[in-house]
C-alpha cells in the first residue's frame, strides 16, 4: 500500500445533509454523519453544526457503523417485543407491560420520543386491563416523564395525577412519592412554585423508606427554593440532598446538587464559588460512566455564569466544549440551548451576525421531534438580541411568534414575560 493522492476537500455538514434524502431509513446515517463531523482548527466565530466538515472518504466507513447501530437498536426492540409476546402467552401480562416499557425507554434514550410514546401508550392499553394496578402506575409515570421532557406539561400532569390516584388507592407509598416527584417537577417547570413545593413535601411523607427517592425530593425542594430566591432554604435542602446522595453513592445525584448549588451561588453573584461548585459537579461525573445530559446541563450553566461575569471568551470556550459533546451524543435540545447562549454572547459583543446562532437553534427545535416550548424560548432571546441591536420591528415579530407558540403550549410564566416585552416595545 502506498500513500495515495491528497484527500478531496471536505464537505460542509449542511451541504452533506442536503445531498441525503430526508427519509427515515437514512436517519441514523444522518445522525452519524453529524456526530463524526469536525470543526476546522482555525477559529470560526460563527460556526454552527451545519458549518462543520465531514470528510467524504469517511462516509464509506460510516455505513457499517450506521447499519450496526440500527441493527443493535432494532434487535433490542424486537427482543422486548418478543418477550412481551412470550409473557402474554404464559398469561403474565405484567411482564408483557414491563417489556413494552423497556422498548419505549430504548426509543426515548435515542431521542425518538414519538416512537417511545407509541410503545408506552400500547403498554398502557394492556396495563389498564389488569387487576394488578402496579403496571399501570408505572406506565403512567413513564408517560408523565416523557410528556414533561417534550414540554407538554398539561399532559404530563394528567398522567402523573392518574398514577398518583392509583398509587394512593393501592396504598403504594413508593408509587405515590414518585408521582409527587413528577408532579413537583412539572409544576416547577410551569413556575407554579407553591404547587411544586406542596408536591415535593407530600412526596417526602411517602418516601421515608427510600433514601434515593428522599434525596430526589429534597433536591426538588432545594432547586425550587433556589428558583424562588429563598437562598437559605435552598442551601438547607440541597445540603440534605447532597448528604443523602453521598450516603447511597449516587454520583449523578450529587453532581446534580452541585449544579444547582452552582446556580444558587451564581444568583447570589458569588461567582468564584459558583465556578468551584460546577467544576466539582463535573469532577463527580468522572468515572461514573458518561452522563452526557447532566454534563451538558452543568456546562451550559458554566457558560451562562461566564456570560453574566462578562468573561465572554471563557463563555465561548465552554460552549464550544459542550457543543462537541452535544454533537457526538446527538443532544439536540442542549445544542439548541447552547446556540442561544452563544447568540447572547455575540449580542453582548454587539455582533449582528450572531443571529446565525438563533436561526440554527430554531432549526434544531423544528427537527424530527419538534420542541415548541424551547422554540418559543429561543424566539424570546432572539427578540431581545434584535432589540439590543436597535431592530424593534424584528424583535416584535419574534415576540409575537413566541406568543403564538406559548399560547398553544400553555406556558404562563414565559407568556407574561413576552407580554411585558411587547408592551415595552409599544412604548413611544
Amino acid at each position, binding site marked *: 500500500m502506498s500513500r495515495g493522492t491528497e484527500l478531496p476537500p471536505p464537505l460542509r455538514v449542511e451541504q452533506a445533509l442536503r445531498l441525503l434524502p430526508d427519509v427515515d431509513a437514512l436517519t441514523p446515517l444522518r445522525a452519524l454523519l453529524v456526530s463524526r463531523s469536525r470543526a476546522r*482548527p*482555525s*477559529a470560526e466565530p460563527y*460556526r*454552527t453544526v451545519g458549518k462543520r466538515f465531514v470528510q467524504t472518504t469517511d462516509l464509506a466507513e460510516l455505513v457499517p457503523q450506521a447499519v450496526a447501530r440500527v441493527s443493535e437498536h432494532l434487535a433490542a426492540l424486537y427482543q422486548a417485543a418478543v418477550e412481551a409476546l412470550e409473557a402474554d402467552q404464559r398469561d403474565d401480562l405484567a411482564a408483557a407491560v414491563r417489556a413494552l416499557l423497556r422498548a419505549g425507554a430504548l426509543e426515548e434514550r435515542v431521542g425518538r420520543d414519538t416512537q417511545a410514546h407509541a410503545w408506552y401508550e400500547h403498554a398502557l392499553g394492556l396495563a389498564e386491563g389488569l387487576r394488578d394496578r402496579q403496571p399501570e402506575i408505572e406506565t403512567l409515570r413513564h408517560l408523565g416523564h416523557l410528556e414533561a421532557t417534550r414540554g407538554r406539561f398539561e399532559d404530563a400532569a394528567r398522567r402523573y395525577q392518574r398514577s398518583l390516584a392509583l398509587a394512593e388507592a393501592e396504598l403504594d407509598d413508593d408509587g405515590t412519592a414518585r408521582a409527587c416527584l413528577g408532579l413537583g417537577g412539572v409544576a416547577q417547570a410551569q413556575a407554579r412554585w407553591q404547587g411544586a413545593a406542596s408536591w415535593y413535601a407530600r412526596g417526602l411523607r411517602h418516601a421515608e423508606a427510600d433514601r434515593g427517592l428522599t434525596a430526589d425530593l429534597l433536591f426538588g425542594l432545594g432547586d425550587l427554593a433556589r428558583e424562588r430566591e429563598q437562598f437559605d432554604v435552598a442551601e438547607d435542602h440541597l445540603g440534605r440532598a447532597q448528604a443523602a446522595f453521598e450516603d447511597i453513592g449516587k454520583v449523578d445525584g450529587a453532581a446534580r446538587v452541585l449544579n444547582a448549588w452552582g446556580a444558587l451561588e451564581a444568583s447570589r453573584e458569588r461567582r468564584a464559588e459558583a465556578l468551584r461548585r460546577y467544576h466539582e459537579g463535573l469532577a463527580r461525573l468522572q468515572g461514573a460512566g458518561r452522563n452526557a445530559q447532566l454534563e451538558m446541563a452543568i456546562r451550559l450553566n458554566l457558560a451562562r455564569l461566564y456570560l453574566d461575569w462578562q468573561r465572554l471568551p471563557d463563555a465561548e470556550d465552554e460552549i464550544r466544549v459542550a457543543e462537541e459533546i452535544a454533537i457526538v451524543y446527538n443532544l439536540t435540545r442542549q445544542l439548541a440551548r447552547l446556540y442561544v447562549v452563544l447568540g447572547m454572547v455575540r449580542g453582548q459583543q454587539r455582533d449582528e451576525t450572531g443571529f446565525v446562532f438563533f436561526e440554527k437553534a430554531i432549526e434544531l427545535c423544528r427537527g424530527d421531534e419538534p420542541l415548541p416550548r424551547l422554540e418559543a424560548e429561543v424566539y424570546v432571546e432572539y427578540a431581545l438580541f434584535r432589540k439590543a441591536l436597535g431592530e424593534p*420591528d424584528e424583535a416584535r415579530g419574534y415576540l409575537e411568534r413566541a406568543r403564538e407558540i406559548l399560547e398553544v403550549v400553555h406556558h404562563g410564566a414565559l407568556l407574561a414575560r413576552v407580554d411585558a416585552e411587547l408592551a415595552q416595545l409599544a412604548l413611544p
Partner: protein
Amino acid sequence: MTTMDRPATLGATAPHGQLRLLVVGRDATVLRELAHYAEMESGVLEQVADPPSALRVLTGDVELAAVIVLLDHDPDEQLGWWVDVLRRMPRRPRLVALVPAPSIGFTLRAAQLGVLEVLPLPVGRERFLDLLRRIQAAADEVALPLPEVTPLGIGAFQVVSQSPAMMSVFRVIAQVAPSTATVLIYGESGTGKELVARAIHEHGPRAKAAFVAVNCAAIPENLLESELFGHEKGAFTGAVARKTGRFERASGGTLFMDEIGDMSVALQSKILRAVQEREIERVGSTDSIPVDVRLIAATNQDLKALIAQGRFREDLYYRLAVVTIALPPLAERGDDLLALTAHFLREFGQRYGKTFTGIADRALDLLRHHDWVGNVRELRNVVERAVLVADGPVLRAEHLPEEWRTGAPAGRSPEVPALTTLNEMEARHISRVLEHTAGQIGEAARILGVHRNTLARKIREYGL
C-alpha cells in the same frame, strides 16, 4: 533545593525561594514518599485527598507552581477534567500526572494537553528531583518591557503594523481608496480582511455613507439570500417582519462580502445581476429596488481553482477582481507579533481593568513558536483570554493556552522533541495521522501504507 538560588522570578514560589506544590491523591505510600523528597529539597508541598478539596485550595489565595495528581483509575477522563479546571483558574499552576503504568498513547495525549510531565509510579527520588527542576525552570521567567505602539486609526478600528509586507498593503489601499473600483481581498482567516475593507471605505468618496459587512460563510445558505436582498413579511416561515437586506442598507456606501467563495453558484448569479443592473428584489417581492453600492469582496480560497471546478462564476470573478490585495499571514509579519500583543494587552487590560507593563521571555517564546493558523484574530483571542486570567502586570507563559506549554525552559524551542525511543516516535506519528483522519483507521492505514489490522494492533499496543 539546590536549584533555588536565582534572581527574582515571576513564578509561584514561597518567600524563601521554595516551590509551592499541591499533591492530590489518597495513596498514603506515594504521598509519604513525595513529602519526604520535597522536604529534603525544601519544597512546600500541600496534600489533599480529592478534587473537591483541591478546588478549595486552588480557589484560595495560595499561589502554586504545580499540581501533582495521582490518577489511579480512568486516567484519561481524570486528566481531561484536571486540564479543564486548571485552564480556568485565576493562577494556572502546571499539571503533573502520576499514573501507575502510563501507556505511550496516554503520555502523548497528556503532552498535547500541555501537561508538564507524566510520571509512572513509583516515582523515585531522582525522577522527582528532576521534576522539581523542570517546574522551577518553568517558573523562572524574566519580564521584558512592552513596546510602545502607535496604531493607525480607521474609524473606530485600529491597525497595528510596521512590517514591510503590510506597508505594501497600505500603499495599495491608499491608491485604490479614492476610486469606486471593486476590490477583491485575498487572505487567510483572521488576517484582517474586513479591516482593510473598512480602510478603503473610510478613505474613499463614500466614507460618510454606510459600511455594511456580511460574512457569507457564517450564514446558513438558506438564509443568505434574504440576508443580502431582504424579504417581505411572511415570505417564508421565519420571515416575521419585513427585512431590509444588506445591499439596501449599504446603498450609497460600501458592501463588504467576506468569504465569497463559500456562496452557492445560484446566489452568485443573483449577486452578478445586482452588480450589473444595480437593482435587487427582496425575497417574496417582485418589485425592483435600485441600489448603488461599492462592492468589496474577500476570500481565503483560490477563486480561479473554484472556477476550474465549476464552483465559482468566472464572470462574477472578473467583476470583483478589478483590484486585488493579498494580505500576509501573521507568521510573515515579523515583529508585528510583539507589537500586536502589546496593543491587545493594553486594549483588553483597559476593558478588564488591568494594567500590563511587560511580557515574560518564556511567554514571548511561546507566542513566537505558535503556528497562528487563525492569524491576528487568534492572537487577539489568545491575548484576551490571557488578560482574563492574568493577576499581575506581566503576561506570563502560564497565561497562555495550556497545550502550548511543554515545560521547556525559555530559549529552547517547544517544538524540539527530546531524544526518544523508536516506539515513541512511531506512536507519535500514528497519533498525528489519526488526528488528520479524525480517527478513521482505514484512511490512516492508507496514508501510513500499512494494513488496517496492523494499524489497529499498534493502536491497541500503544493505547492510542
